[in-house]
């Protein structure tokens, strides 16, 4: 058993109330492997002399590095909430009725000036602090698509066509709110892994460090997993594989939704790629811009890490379906 004062900083989720296990035996093994690879670089260096593997390594490292500042921003916000916002304060601050709380939380996403990697730890912390899950999820989905930085880059990528950014804002917020409302009606509380934080007996500073440390390691590990997957897709699947469907309206919507999930491009940069997809219809490109910041391979990895696999299994299909419909409807009306 841990001494009482240390149990407070250990995950107090119900499943973890059992006595702590002895520390895992993994560490020495991992450090040994790392040391070997670093000391004799030729071991991996030879393997990566193939142009395909070198391409993989460059994309993998660039995806990891690119996400890091945004992940750190999200982790800092999450840790501040954990250490300084009193428990249950959020639940009281948000309106009781989901019909009001969900749109409010979705709109609140506009204040987090980052991409999708920032909003995952923040949404996770909001749930842990007692915010209604539906509201936190609306925030999770809306924040990366409707914040000012992303809006500006969308306007820049489509010169002379500000309606694209407007349509993106509307379709993303709509999809986020619909998913939130559906979730509040249908979802079971047990689908979400919760890790309520309990910093009783610790200073704010200690609570901040503990939360930031564990959030960053948890999300960072899953980010690496996601980046490796995405880099593999980039290296193995040529983009032209999707072009055969460009001529057909319905098929191109499905294809660009799939492309958004597979490419996992950061929401700050995806508008530039969408601008280049000129062989596809405007509506299907809007679907690309709505789906991408909500669900992609990198995000699925982060969602699994933050909310658990049972959550992701139900959440991702729901979001993709709602985002595709929302993008198609708004695109047909506006563009």
């Amino acid at each position, binding site marked *: 058993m841990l*001494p009482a004062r*240390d149990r407070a900083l*250990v*995950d107090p989720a119900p499943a*973890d109330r059992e006595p702590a*296990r002895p*520390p*895992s035996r*993994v*560490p020495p093994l991992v450090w040994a492997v*790392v040391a070997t*690879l*670093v000391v004799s*670089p030729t071991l*991996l*260096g030879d393997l*990566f002399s193939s*142009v*395909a593997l*070198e*391409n993989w390594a*460059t994309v*993998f*490292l*660039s995806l*990891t*590095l*690119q996400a*890091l500042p945004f992940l*750190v921003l999200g982790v*800092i916000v999450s840790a501040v909430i954990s250490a300084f916002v009193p428990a249950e304060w959020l639940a009281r601050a948000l309106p009781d009725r989901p019909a009001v709380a969900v749109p409010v939380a979705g709109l609140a996403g506009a204040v987090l000036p980052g991409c999708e990697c920032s909003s995952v730890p923040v949404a996770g912390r909001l749930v842990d602090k007692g915010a209604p899950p539906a509201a936190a999820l609306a925030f999770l989905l809306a924040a990366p698509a409707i914040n000012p930085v992303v809006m500006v*880059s969308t306007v*820049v990528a489509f*010169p002379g066509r500000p309606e694209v950014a407007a349509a993106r804002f509307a379709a993303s917020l709509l999809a986020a709110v619909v998913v939130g409302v559906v979730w509040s009606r249908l979802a079971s509380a047990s689908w979400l892994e919760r*890790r309520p934080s309990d910093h009783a007996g610790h200073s704010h500073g*200690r609570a901040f*460090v*503990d939360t*930031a*440390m*564990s959030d*960053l*390691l*948890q999300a*960072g*590990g899953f980010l*690496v*997993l996601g*980046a490796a997957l995405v*880099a593999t897709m*980039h290296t193995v699947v040529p*983009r032209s594989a999707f*072009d055969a469907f460009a001529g057909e309206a319905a098929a191109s919507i499905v294809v660009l939704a799939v492309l958004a999930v597979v490419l996992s*491009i950061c929401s*700050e*940069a*995806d508008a*530039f*790629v969408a601008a*280049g997809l000129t062989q596809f219809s405007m509506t299907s490109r809007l679907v690309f811009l709505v789906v991408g910041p909500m669900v992609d391979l990198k995000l699925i990895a982060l969602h699994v890490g933050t909310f658990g696999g049972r959550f992701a299994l139900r959440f991702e299909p729901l979001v993709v379906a709602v985002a595709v419909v929302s993008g198609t409807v708004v695109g047909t009306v506006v563009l």
Partner: protein
Amino acid sequence: MSPTRLRRADAAALLAGLAGLTLWLSLTDAFYRYLRPTMRPWLVAAGVFVAGLALATAVTAWRESRRDGAVSARPSVAGWLLVVPLVIALSTDPGALGAFAVRQQAGGYVPVGDFDLDAHLRSHTWGGQVPSLQLHQFLAAAKDDDEQRLLADTTVRLTGFVVHDRGADGGPDPDGGFTLARLMIGCCAGDASGLLVAVRGHDGPRPDEEAWVEVTGRFDPALTAAQPQDAIAGSVPVLAVSSLRHVDEPREPYEYPS
């Protein structure tokens, strides 16, 4: 099931490794292989924060070990995956994206924005020097009906790397043609798009694939129209080359949308 947890000391070491990787790749020129320059201060700031977090975690771990032996902290073993980028970067130190990435996109999606060639030439031509254009600027002008003509009348300088053309059967091109290429990134190398200009009329031996060259020449509308249409990007514009020289890979290997 209780997830296996990290010891606090290991957590501190992992964070220190992540901070080291981030600061190394953000403070050296290696940075430009991965991200666009405007991201640099944010990456440095992230590296400094992670370093501070590693230090604070190490201090906590040390205090705990003096009090009552090793104590497990909260993060799961997923954190161990953070050694992967460190190992890859240290052992392979990969170069910037090149011909493989260009081919992978088979013509690439080329975002062509607004570009005023006339204004650019007036501000970049002095002392009889041949004005240089970035590849995305050349492509924008070549695809614009109004500016095509001015472009065809102006000798320009382009810098990029060499991608050997392929014949109709996918094998080596019997004519030994090559294309000048550059990759454009919006944020990181993960969203790169290929920029391509076909080079024609080069007399000397064909440069090696991936070699960085500076070519001088003029846009050729007739040859461009005669080019086989690329299924994706339409026709690749042709530069009728008058001179070619090898150059070093630039510090910033990619182009960026304005």
